[in-house]
């Protein structure tokens, strides 16, 4: 979808709101702008010009009628102004929600590859900051535009009604104010951008040192670090001064322009009154002058307001462009239609090759059959392709060449949902979301009871530490705080214990757990996995000695396979790796 279509897509459901908002704003503006007209008329009813002298001759009736109408209009105007602002706000929040939900949907349905290739911070910025920008920018511009443009049109009409000559004068003069404030806004926006950049540099600098303050102190690097901070801070000061100063031109220069216009229109009006007797075409009087001075202010206001939100509008445009690009990304296509009606018994890699990038050779011509109830261990140096293998197995990525069959069916033909429901996986990078311990573990199987969750935690040997937490199972945890890496691993293991899947994948799942606890967990797994297939990746070779099949991977190839005994007698790569522990 291009940007316009996308924008229209979000605006379309809001037609009713737009319609009623527009009607309300028209009523409001007419009422508001008629006020100076009626006030001018009342003042005219105070008396008449005789030559150049104002002679008092009150027409109380006219005054009372005009002011009563004005008072009524004032209440009507206020009411519809409220309705207008209220509707615009509802509309903007509806649109914000729609975009947010769409972005989140995309996050959950884009291919893993897409998510992997993007920075997590950028994605959060897209979902939170960019959408806020749209709400602030687009919608305030929308509001100012509707209100401003209508106000301008109505004011022009009313000014012509009062006095066409001065009306032309105002129309010619006011764009001045628009250009001045637009110029100031663009100029200061540029400097604010620079300031923002310097600010985020300074943030990064301080974040680095503060989050590693121990190290900085231990290296005795405080003085240098403070100096580096001061240098960066000084740059920020220089730019900040310029930015703040340039932004502060807005109000004074607008005031200057307005005062100038006020003086010119005022004096011109007075002169016109003086000559109305000799040149009736000027048709000016004191009441009209009062109305005019009000209209001049009313007329310049929308110009200033529109130009002041222009910078926000540009930001919003950028944000919307980014969101549109993200939403235009291809969804993860699941061409697999087959739904497995029985658990996966056999997995077979057939001449399978895979790489993340073209021209890169990660896994090549991989052949292996994993049978039911087999306990497979994959070992090998970093970068051998162990985790990649899991990525392909779970269909987070598809093989570049060859295929993987599950129960003899090509993986590509099986629906991802059905395929993945066979696996339970514990990854190297633990994932704990913001929520209670109970919620985090239950995530694996939403319909399980508290008792089930607790018993899974007991099996994972997580129960002991959970009970030392302030609120036990109801303690709130998040990705950032609360738990040590080892404790997080225990929780993710508990998840799999709860899900009891057919096939268990453990990718360095116990790397931060002390070896004794690890042993106890692996016993628990052994008990649980008696009738299960398991695939384990481990650095610590001691944990995998019981595996029925050990695959030794190097550079994407299986270089050795067999059980622990066979591999040890072979005295090959595995033997070296293993014996290094006891040297």
């Amino acid at each position, binding site marked *: 979808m291009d940007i316009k279509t996308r924008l229209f897509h979000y605006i379309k459901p809001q037609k009713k709101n737009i319609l009623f908002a527009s009607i309300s704003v028209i009523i409001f503006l007419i009422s508001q702008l008629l*006020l100076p007209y009626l006030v001018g008329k*009342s*003042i005219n*009813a*105070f008396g008449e010009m005789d030559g*150049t002298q104002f002679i*008092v001759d009150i027409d109380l009736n006219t005054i009372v009628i005009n002011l009563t109408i004005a008072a009524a209009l*004032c209440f009507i*105007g206020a009411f519809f102004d*409220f309705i207008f*602002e209220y509707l615009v*706000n*509802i509309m903007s929040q509806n649109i914000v929600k729609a975009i947010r*939900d769409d972005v*989140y949907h995309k*996050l*959950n349905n884009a291919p*893993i590859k897409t*998510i992997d290739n993007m920075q997590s911070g950028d994605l959060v910025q897209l*979902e*939170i900051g960019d959408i806020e920008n749209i709400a602030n920018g687009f919608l305030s511009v929308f509001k100012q535009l509707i209100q401003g443009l209508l106000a301008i049109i109505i004011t022009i009409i009313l000014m012509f009604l009062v006095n066409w000559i001065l009306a032309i004068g105002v129309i010619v003069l006011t764009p001045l104010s628009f250009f001045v404030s637009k110029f100031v806004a663009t100029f200061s926006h540029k400097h604010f951008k620079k300031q923002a950049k310097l600010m985020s540099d*300074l*943030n*990064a600098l*301080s*974040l680095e040192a*503060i*989050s*590693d303050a121990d190290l900085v102190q231990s290296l*005795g*690097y405080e003085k240098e670090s403070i100096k580096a*901070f001061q240098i960066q*801070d000084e740059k*920020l*000061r220089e730019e900040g*001064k310029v930015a*703040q100063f340039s932004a*502060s031109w807005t109000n004074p220069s607008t*005031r*200057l322009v307005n*005062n100038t216009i006020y003086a010119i229109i*005022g*004096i011109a009006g007075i002169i016109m009154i003086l000559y109305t007797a000799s040149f009736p075409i000027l048709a000016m009087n*004191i009441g009209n002058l009062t109305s005019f001075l*009000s209209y001049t*202010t009313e007329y310049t206001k929308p110009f200033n307001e529109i130009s002041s939100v222009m910078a926000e509008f540009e930001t919003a445009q950028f944000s919307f462009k980014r969101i549109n690009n993200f939403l235009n990304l291809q969804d993860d296509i699941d061409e697999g239609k087959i739904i497995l009606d029985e658990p996966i018994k056999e997995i077979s890699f057939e001449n399978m090759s895979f790489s993340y990038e073209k021209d890169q050779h990660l896994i090549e011509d991989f052949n292996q059959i994993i049978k039911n109830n087999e306990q497979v261990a994959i070992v090998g140096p*970093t970068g051998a392709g162990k985790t990649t293998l899991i990525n392909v197995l*779970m269909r987070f990525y598809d093989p570049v060449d060859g295929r993987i069959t599950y129960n003899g069916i090509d993986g590509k033909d099986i629906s991802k949902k059905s395929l*993945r429901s066979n696996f339970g996986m514990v*990854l190297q990078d633990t*994932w704990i*979301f913001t929520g209670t311990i109970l919620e985090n573990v239950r*995530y694996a199987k939403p319909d399980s009871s508290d008792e089930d969750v607790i018993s899974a935690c007991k099996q994972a040997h997580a129960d002991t530490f959970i009970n030392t937490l302030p609120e036990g199972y109801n303690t709130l945890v998040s990705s950032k705080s609360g738990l040590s890496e080892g404790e997080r691993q225990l929780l993710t293991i508990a998840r799999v214990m709860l899900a009891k899947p057919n096939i268990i994948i453990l990718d360095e799942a116990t790397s931060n757990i002390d070896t004794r*606890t*690890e042993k106890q967990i692996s016993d628990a797994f052994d008990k649980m996995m008696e009738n299960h297939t398991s695939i384990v990746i481990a650095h*610590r070779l*001691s944990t995998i000695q019981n595996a029925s099949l050990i695959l030794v991977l190097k550079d994407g190839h299986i270089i050795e396979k067999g059980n622990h005994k066979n591999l040890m007698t072979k005295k090959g790569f595995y033997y*070296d790796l293993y014996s*290094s522990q006891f*040297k």
Partner: protein
Amino acid sequence: MKLKTKDIIKKSWPYFIIGPAVKMIEAIFDLLIPLFMKAIIDLCFSSSNDIVTNSLGSFIKSFGTWIPNNPELNYSIIGGFIILIMGITGFCTTMVCQYIAAKTATAVGTELRDNLYQKILSLSKKEREMMTENKMLTILNSDSYQVQQGVLFFIRLGIRAPFIILGSLVISFILDYQIGLIFLAIIPIILTIVFLVMMKSSKKYLEIQSKLDVLSNKTSDNIAGTRVVRAFNRQEYEEKSFKSHTASYQKEAIRVGRLNSLINPLTFAIVAIATIAVVFIGGFSMNAGVSFFGYQLLPSTIITLVSYLTQIFQTLVLLTNLIQIFTKSLVSMKRCDQLLQLESSIKCDGTYINKNYLFKQPYLVFNHVYLSYKENGNYALTDLNFTLNKGESLGIIGPTGSGKSSIIKLIERFLDATEGTLLYKGQDIKNYSLKDLRKEIGYVPQKANLFKGTILSNFKMADDEASNQEIEKALKIAKAHDFVKAYNDYLQHEVEEKGMNFSGGQRQRLTIARALIRKPELLILDDSTSALDLLTDKEVRNNISKSYPNLTKIIVSQRVSTISDCDLILVLEGGKIIAQGKHDELLKTCKTYEETYLSQAKRGD
């Protein structure tokens, strides 16, 4: 001396007087312009005069008459010029004030940030953990900016806004005291309404902000857990739960919006009604003969009063915004002060240097050492006693959370012992200057973090006089030279934030090399070889022993193999030493040690 935010602001006190003073010139002109307009109108059209027209009128007349046959035209042109000149002069003086404001505010902000940063780095681990990293960063980056904004707007508008409102009020009283009373009545009404709504909505705004935080957390959780979400097939659930959060955000935002939508219509209505009232009263007063108030208002007065009304109204809205900025700024000031008032609990006034240190004295002694992170809290370390001699190695092993790293924190003096004493080179460790102590220690932390810059810049951090040969030597010992050599730019190779462009193992080797470059007397490896494979781990340790035979070492690890050849091994559990000795002794005497060893290596066949 403890610095406060106030002290930093006070330093710029002359600007707080000059700035607003210059700005007053414009404010006075702004107040005079409608009066001049009135004087011109009266000079032209009215035979009756009031005090304003008399004084300003004679001022205009003093410029002389150049168009003799049409004095009215003459006066209005002169008056027009006077108004224009006042506008331009006002503009120029204002810009002077704006410049002073920008300069002073950024100076205050910068000095505040520098001081905050300095303070943070001087704090010990205890205070830093108490404040939390996030809070310190917020104070440093956003609260300091908030204070800066407060200063900026105070100089710019702090005096001007109230002055304009008061001035308009005074002038309206001079023009007509009864209408002045109307003005006096509406000012508090508008102020109260706008203020009430703003107070309420800013409270609600905090709620909205926290709802937005929830959305943000949910999004980053979801991104981090992409694989898990899909592995458990929970995409639909995720979306549903997210939608319920966006719905609640939407509801709250609409509620706040509704409140804010009240401000404009209400103020519009009040000002409009006031205008109507002014004209109405004016009309009655002018109704000759039946004068309602017993005197007459000039039509010019009515026009002028209406423009003061607008003036008051606009400034009031500005004033309420200002009050909000100042409130925020005051809160931020308090938060900054809270940080500035902190004092490091580690006193580093010690100056002792043990020049007479003899090898015969133990290098490090723990004597009944206890450590508690909170006052009266549970002990993280309980009654530790051990002795380490110069040139020997100490291994520490134990499960997660057993207190291994806490021991290291005591030796580095990130923390002080709650009870008991640490003797370093025969002297209480507190007697040394912090700088000298840390200079002698090469510390490789658990988290192998590098700083943004280059490989070279990271080494220079540890020792800014290190030569390339020395760095090369350290790299070779830490087995990092091979991969560093492979970079075209060698030591100039870029290091991204936290060294994320290196693998965990590479980072650990670089941090070990970085510690070695300092030629330490004591090397501490806090689980710092965990990401290395066993072979490399062993080689690195052997290299270190060979190259620095006199180096005293402390090695913390979960791997028995890493510490098995140490001269002394401490087995920790629950913050207590449950056994200490050499590897072979421990295998016989300590069951936990034996079990740990067996769990890592069944030697069987």
